[in-house]
């Protein structure tokens, strides 16, 4: 399973966010360039339909593939009190013929996206946190990633996730929440279903951050 939070930020403030994350995370930034395929099981396959994501990391010299299934969200009074979503997530690396494999198993391609941006992966307490700041691009023609266009021009998606277990999700959720508090003047992170938009203080915070680094935002 995993704990996750999500938010959005205007592209003009991404540089300031990167500056802030550089200081908070103390690890090198990693480039993200991922071609994602969203597949759904065909009719009659499985007692309930299932969805999976195939992620091809095209930022590497040799692209690597991952298959991921995001399952149900934890519910109940305990889960409601958390600021993060706790959900089942299973993933596995897979060989490059993954897409053909799932087609033959009876899965259909629903849509595909290209996600570009950067990520910081770091340890905070018992949580192995990953924060990604990405532009989500839709792909108008089958596999034509060169023709990808942003889904929300001028806005970028920020996702914070960390793997967790049934034993430690409370601790992991606390680590994520504590980390996200540091970002709150710049962006508001919440459960993916509650994404609230940009924060009023973003512009002033970004300006302050950039002036501290000797750079300006416009």
């Amino acid at each position: 399973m995993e704990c996750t939070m999500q938010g959005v930020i205007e592209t003009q403030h991404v540089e300031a966010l990167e500056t802030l994350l550089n200081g908070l995370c103390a690890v090198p930034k990693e480039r993200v360039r991922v071609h994602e395929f969203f597949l759904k099981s065909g009719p009659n396959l499985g007692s309930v339909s299932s969805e999976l994501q195939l992620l091809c990391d095209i930022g590497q010299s040799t692209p690597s593939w991952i298959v991921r299934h995001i399952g149900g969200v934890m519910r109940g009074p305990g889960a409601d009190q958390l600021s993060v979503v706790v959900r089942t997530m299973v993933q596995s690396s897979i060989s490059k013929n993954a897409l053909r494999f799932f087609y033959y198993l009876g899965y259909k391609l629903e849509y595909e996206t290209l996600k570009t941006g950067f990520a910081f992966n770091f340890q905070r307490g018992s949580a192995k946190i990953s924060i990604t700041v990405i532009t989500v691009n839709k792909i108008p023609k089958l596999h034509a990633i060169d023709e990808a266009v942003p889904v929300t021009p001028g806005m970028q998606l920020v996702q914070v996730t960390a793997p967790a277990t049934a034993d430690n999700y409370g601790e992991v959720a606390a680590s994520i929440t504590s980390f996200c508090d540091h970002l709150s003047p710049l962006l508001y992170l919440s459960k993916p279903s509650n994404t609230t938009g940009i924060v009023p203080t973003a512009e002033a915070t970004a300006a302050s951050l950039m002036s501290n680094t000797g750079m300006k935002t416009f």
Partner: protein
Amino acid sequence: MATVKIVINKIRQSKNREGAESGAMPVKWLLHWKNISNLDKKMAEDILSEMLKSIERMYAVKEGPWKNTLSFFHPNLKDLKKPTVCASECLGLSLYEDPEKFFFVLFPPKLVVEVDSNYSLLMNHLGSYKKGNFIHFEGTRYRCGDFRLRLGFASSVSLRIKAVFMEIEYLPISSIKTAEPIMEGFISLLKLLMSQTGIPGNFVCHDPKYAEFELPDQYSSMHTALQYSYLMTQLI
């Protein structure tokens, strides 16, 4: 015995010519003992015992046990009568040599896929395919000069399968094409030794036609998974 020593020496000389290829897996061939009549437990044990005697004549040294498992996955259909576009069967293999990985074989359409060993958990979550029967391939490993031999039974209670087979691994070479004459020489020697036992039947080796599955000449666990899948088709 003199013939045996000559062949083994020849194989050892070929190792010196080729040299080991670091970072790649040694080539393997999988054979099974094809008998005219149906194989019962007693007969299978007799064949295995004679195989063991034959490789002992080649100074094979026992190394330890090993086990591979082949599982059958079938689509979990909501309505069995309703036609559904999906593979009717998918073979899954866990290999002793590569415990971190799991392999799927589909034929048709001739596809071998490598995933992490936790993939079965993902399969359970998806719920689109369910695990059915399985076949265990298990036995004992032996080292014989530059060769590693795995002798054992293929068995499945549910499928009523009992077969004797041997996996031959030539440790210095990872190119399938380069290893071919050496493998053929070794198998000829094995066949010669087994022919002297009077056991009915003979070794059968299947060509899985790796190129049709887009597998390269450099040997990998995906090749092993395919060989076991082919062997399974011969047993059922």
